[in-house]
């Protein structure tokens, strides 16, 4: 193997304690767009990037998951250990380790530096967030710290423009000067090693760091409210409540605009193209199908705006603190909170984030229930049906009924995840002791506009890319199914009744009629296996073709005429549970290393979906909503 130094490229690695800002520094140096947030455990994979030092030297930089030690107690920490020790086949041994430390919180970071010194690689300590430390009056004697540790020290503020200039300026000289490598004497630290290293770290800090006369109390004062046993829970519930109300209330004008835009585009295509198959394909297949999904972009972005703000503020770890007793009661690991929270965006990053969980069974439980958290792909399905069937009225004087139903759907998702976890722990893995919960509560930080904007942009791009690829290709399929074969000469009724779509939909009727689904829903569920929002687009296409040229109404209005309330509610219930996402199942297979848990997830979710839809449909009919 050729080492990278032979060809003149340096390999640097970012290591450090969780939430010290490694990824922010990585983004600042490489111009990358990796996700950053104010809670420990955001990065669970190694991420590679490159940059050039002021003297023109190329550097390959790898960002690693945060860790308190190189012991590697969970899958994400193992990655860090293996890269640092040069045990990864396709990753050269780092020429320089940049140990990133939160300058306001040095104790544990300095102990990690002491451990890293044993690896024998050139090492540089980067005191990140130095601006905050200085503002708080923490007085760090850099020369003293450096001489006490025997490691060069530089400062940085990764999130500010120019905040990495000093680091860059010194990298050239440091990379060469620090370049004394030694044989690694690292071994997993024992408890006495840890105690000795911490004592040494405390001694170094005492000699080189002056603590402020007036400690910063903002976080403490905010937490006095947000972590108050009563007020804290009220605030958490209010936040969730406002979030779902906003998803409906704020998005409406923009959604109307997008929807009108696609309608106009459809009319344009209709007029520009000659009557026939091509016209139908462009107007009903492409524009109406893809448009019916893209219209939900504003709602998804509003939801993410809330999530990103709370993440950057540092609230997420607090929410985990408030919810811990409930989660622990259901047998979930304390660190499962953040993976489950990520699953509100999408179960895929959520399942990946379970790598922070050390215990294999706890990790499996979290993976099994993560798809039950309401992901953003369900939003189009939920909001389409809610807008069409739930009256837009205010109850109790201030609560929007539509937002309340949405809130309820999210709540059912969360409660069922807790329930499934409880059952798994008490009936299948009975000998599994409740694992510990230990989580650092980071100091609050003002959310940064740039980071929020970047997060929203990333989410929007993911969504639009899906609309352009998965959803588009499924639309071509569903249009084909709904258009062929053509009806025979002189046939009566709508042409779609003779199509493959109708044949398949009706073939599934014996199974799905008991839960209230008509053949149009049945056929939409099949391409909906690829991704949840495809079902919405499929319904759009099927009803657009069925309605023919006269179908000027929007899909929501069509549904309101064609379905009973019982059917609509049954479909909502179905979507809380149904495993309608091929990518999630693929990630479960990859992360659990086999088919077994993928099939278990698929089977239990499908069963729950069927039961829930069945009960909902029959209860709704009994209530006279049939």
């Amino acid at each position, binding site marked *: 193997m050729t080492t990278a130094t032979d060809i003149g490229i340096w390999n640097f690695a970012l290591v450090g304690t969780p939430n010290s800002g490694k990824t922010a520094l990585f983004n600042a140096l490489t111009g990358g767009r990796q996700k950053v947030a104010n809670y420990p455990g955001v990065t669970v994979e190694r991420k590679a990037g490159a940059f050039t030092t002021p003297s023109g030297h190329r550097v390959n930089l790898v960002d690693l998951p945060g860790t*308190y*030690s190189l*012991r590697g*107690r969970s899958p994400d920490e193992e990655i860090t250990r293996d890269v640092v020790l040069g045990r990864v086949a396709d990753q050269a041994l780092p020429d320089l380790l940049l140990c990133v430390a939160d300058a*306001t*919180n*040095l*104790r*544990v970071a300095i102990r990690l530096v002491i451990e890293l010194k044993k690896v024998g690689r050139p090492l540089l300590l980067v005191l990140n967030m130095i601006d905050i430390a200085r503002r708080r009056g923490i007085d760090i004697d850099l020369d003293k710290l450096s001489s006490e540790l025997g490691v060069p020290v530089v400062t940085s503020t990764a999130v500010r423009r120019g905040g990495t200039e000093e680091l860059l300026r010194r990298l050239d000289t440091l990379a060469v000067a620090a370049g004394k490598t030694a044989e690694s004497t690292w071994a997993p*630290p024992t*408890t006495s090693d*840890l*105690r000795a290293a*911490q*004592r040494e770290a*405390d001694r170094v800090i005492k000699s080189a760091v002056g603590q402020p006369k007036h400690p910063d109390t903002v*976080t*403490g004062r905010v*937490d006095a409210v947000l*972590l*108050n*046993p*009563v007020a*804290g*829970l009220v605030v958490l519930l209010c936040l969730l409540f406002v979030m779902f109300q906003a998803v409906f209330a704020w998005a409406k004008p923009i959604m109307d605009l997008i929807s009108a835009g696609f309608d106009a585009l459809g009319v344009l295509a209709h007029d520009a193209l000659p009557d026939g198959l091509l016209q139908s394909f462009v107007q009903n297949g492409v524009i109406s199908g893809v448009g019916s999904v893209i219209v939900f972009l504003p709602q998804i972005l509003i939801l993410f705006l809330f999530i990103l703000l709370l993440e950057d503020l540092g609230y997420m*770890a607090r929410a*985990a*603190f*408030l919810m*811990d*007793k*409930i989660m*622990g009661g259901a047998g979930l690991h*304390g660190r499962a909170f953040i993976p489950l929270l990520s699953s509100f965006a999408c179960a895929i990053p959520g399942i990946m984030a379970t790598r922070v969980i050390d*215990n294999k069974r*706890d990790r499996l439980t979290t993976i099994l229930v993560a798809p039950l958290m309401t992901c953003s792909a369900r939003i189009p399905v939920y909001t389409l049906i809610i807008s069409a069937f739930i009256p837009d009225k205010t109850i109790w004087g201030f609560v929007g009924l539509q937002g309340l139903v949405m809130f309820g759907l999210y709540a059912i998702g969360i409660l069922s995840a807790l329930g499934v976890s409880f059952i798994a722990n008490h009936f299948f893995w009975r000998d*599994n*002791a*409740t*694992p*510990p*919960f*230990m*989580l*650092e*509560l980071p*100091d609050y930080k003002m959310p940064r506009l740039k980071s929020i904007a970047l997060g929203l942009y990333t989410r929007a791009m993911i969504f639009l890319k899906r609309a352009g690829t998965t959803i588009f290709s499924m639309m071509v399929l569903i249009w084909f199914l709904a258009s062929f074969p053509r009806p025979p000469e002189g046939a009566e009724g709508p042409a779609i009744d003779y199509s493959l779509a109708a044949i398949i939909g009706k073939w599934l009727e014996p199974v799905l009629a008991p839960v209230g689904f008509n053949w149009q829903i049945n056929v939409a569920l099949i391409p909906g296996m690829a991704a949840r929002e495809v079902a919405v687009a499929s319904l759009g296409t099927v009803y657009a073709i069925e309605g023919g040229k006269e179908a000027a109404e929007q899909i929501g209005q069509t549904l309101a005429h064609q379905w009973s309330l019982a059917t609509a509610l049954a479909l909502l219930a179905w979507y809380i549970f149904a495993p309608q996402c091929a990518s999630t199942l693929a990630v479960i297979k990859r992360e659990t290393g086999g088919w077994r848990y993928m099939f278990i997830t698929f089977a239990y979710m499908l069963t729950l979906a069927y039961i829930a839809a069945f009960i909902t449909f029959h209860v709704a009919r009994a209530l006279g909503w049939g």
Partner: protein
Amino acid sequence: MSERPVSLKADQRTPLGLVARGFRGHIQAIHVAESAHGLSAAELEQRLLELGFVEGAEVEVLHEGPLGRDPIAVRVNDTTIALRRREAMAILVS
């Protein structure tokens, strides 16, 4: 969690898992009594040490969870760590 009677006189050591919000003190010892944590006693000790719960460190209980006053948020030197009282039983403070 068994509420073991705590003798404050016996060299003044109390498990951190039993103290109330507002408590301030120093860590005297890390001693994991049982291994009913889904982890071995040594592993739990190691994790507490890694988070900075080391003999001599200053601790303050800042917050208590809303249900059963559990978990607790503990200031240990300049860091705030949330942990359950069950695990905090291993941290002896005075």
